[in-house]
């Protein structure tokens, strides 16, 4: 449903992405793997409309698209949950949940924010995924890390995300909360939502992924299904060359 061809992104003279191709099918969890600085963040920021690519083409649901702003991608049904979660700690759960998409009623020149309605909806959505909010006006700053993560994902899904980009959703979580998040991702796939799962944890990628794309230094190394490569091979590809791994091994053992 989403296809990228020959994507190039330059920041001045720095080439962050060089000829990257990527595709995503409905209901799959496509893991995007790579070391720090491999270009994962740049790639997802292009898909989510945060950056416009220097070159290359993108199509969504069979149609060529060009996103000029995150709003464009959101309107198409591409929801992104960044590592920073795009939550504002000083704002209430409700204000965060509806941030940028506030339900409103036109009153004269003003777009009146329907706060009561928003509060009820936010509490309801959070309850559905098993978080009971005693107070929807409590600030996000008072939530736990896992609660914030699920709030951010639930928000993207609520606003009709057909494609969900999750940027290292489990990196800051403990084992138990990680399992909850991964489980929630599998549930979403069954509902036909496609997920791009950015991680550098190959173990988690194997646990839930249907396909893997490995990036290294701004290039695609390749796209694989789990049966094609072992976890060790995948980890080698992620961290760079086998030679480098070998060198490190000799360095640490000898």
């Amino acid at each position, binding site marked *: 449903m989403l296809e990228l061809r020959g994507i190039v992104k330059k920041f001045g003279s720095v080439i962050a992405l060089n000829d990257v191709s990527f595709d995503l099918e409905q209901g799959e969890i496509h893991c995007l793997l790579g070391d720090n600085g491999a270009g994962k963040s740049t790639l997802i920021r292009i898909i*989510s409309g*945060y950056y416009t690519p220097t070159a290359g083409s993108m199509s969504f649901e069979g149609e060529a698209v060009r996103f000029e*702003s*995150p*709003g464009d991608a*959101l309107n198409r049904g591409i929801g*992104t949950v*960044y590592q*920073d*979660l*795009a*939550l*504002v*700690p*000083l*704002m209430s759960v409700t*204000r965060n949940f*509806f*941030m*940028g*998409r*506030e339900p*409103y009623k036109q009153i004269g020149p*003003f*777009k*009146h*924010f329907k*706060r009561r309605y928003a509060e009820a909806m936010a509490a309801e959505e959070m309850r559905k995924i098993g978080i009971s909010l005693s107070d929807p006006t409590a*600030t*996000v*700053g*008072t*939530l736990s890390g896992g609660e914030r993560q699920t709030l951010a994902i639930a928000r993207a899904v609520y606003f009709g995300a057909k494609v969900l980009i999750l940027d290292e959703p489990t990196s800051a979580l403990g084992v138990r909360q990680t399992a909850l998040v991964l489980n929630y991702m599998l549930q979403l796939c069954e509902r036909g939502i496609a997920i791009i799962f950015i991680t550098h944890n190959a173990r988690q990628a194997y646990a839930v992924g249907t396909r893997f794309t490995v990036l290294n230094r701004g290039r695609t190394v390749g796209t694989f299904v789990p049966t094609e490569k072992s976890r060790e091979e995948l980890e080698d590809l992620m961290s760079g060359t086998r030679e480098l791994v070998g060198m490190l091994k000799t360095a640490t053992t000898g």
Partner: protein
Amino acid sequence: MGLAIVLGLFLSIANPAMFGPRGIVNWLEVSAQLAVLAVGACLLMVAGEFDLSMGSMIAFSGMAMALLIKFAGFAPWLAILSGFALALAVGFIIGMLRVRTGLPSFIVSLAFLFILRGVTIVGARMFNETTLIGGMQNLKHSDFVAFVFGGRVLGGLFNWLASVGWLAKLPNGQPVISGVQMIVVWAVLIGVTAAYVLNGTRFGNWMYATGGDANAARSSGIPIARVRVLLFMFSAFCATVFATCQLFDFGSADAGRGLLKEFEAIIAAVIGGGVLSGGYGSVIGSMLGALIFGIVSQGFFFTGVDGDWFQIFLGVVLLGAVAFNNYARKRISGGI
């Protein structure tokens, strides 16, 4: 809370004349002037920005209107409209510079603090011999728009109060208060509207989000550039309301007007609970901050204490308010 205690202490030692009818109208007007500016500063602060050019903008737009009336033969209403258009355009430019260059608004608006002050002085000298243009006392009655800024309201009420003996009269039979300056009406109008927009509208949520975390706001599809530019225009608008009221009330424009007002506005917003790092603030709080500021500054005047003490008081209150707000922010944001 702490401010209420300070205020209470202060009121207990203040001269009772301050709370006579004339005293009340006096500090109400002083507070209202600052409140108009404080509301502009507060909304900007919520969105994470400062406008240090507000004080210079007061002189600039007031002078622009006076020059248009005196040297271009504009009717007051047309001069007022032109002055507002000019101020909004400058606000737009400041906002665009902030957004496009990505420089902190502190720097961009600081530059305009000097630019606008300079343009005002140079412009005044170019047409007028001095940087003061006077002799416009009667213009406020020349048309409705001028009256809306320079007139006085509630004159009838005070006349009636005086006629039934509840208000003292001057020797000539007129009540001691001839009316309340329009700036008070403007302060209430702007304050109520801004408070509603901040807490009751979609745009208000955008302001909180922009100031709370600009990246989060942007990736949620909020047009943060538009939010910022509009708020710089709003603060220019507030400064111009202040300037227009002064121009038509005093009947003069002076290139030296509005000095340090930008800081007073920020102080009032901070006393009212605004957080300097953005993302939190209260319009009603800022209005109360301006009220406290007005009462205390006039209080020094009425009690006969050397007015320079006021500055020391102000500095201490500012420090206290910032420390308290910072603590409160950490509590509600989970230590971030």
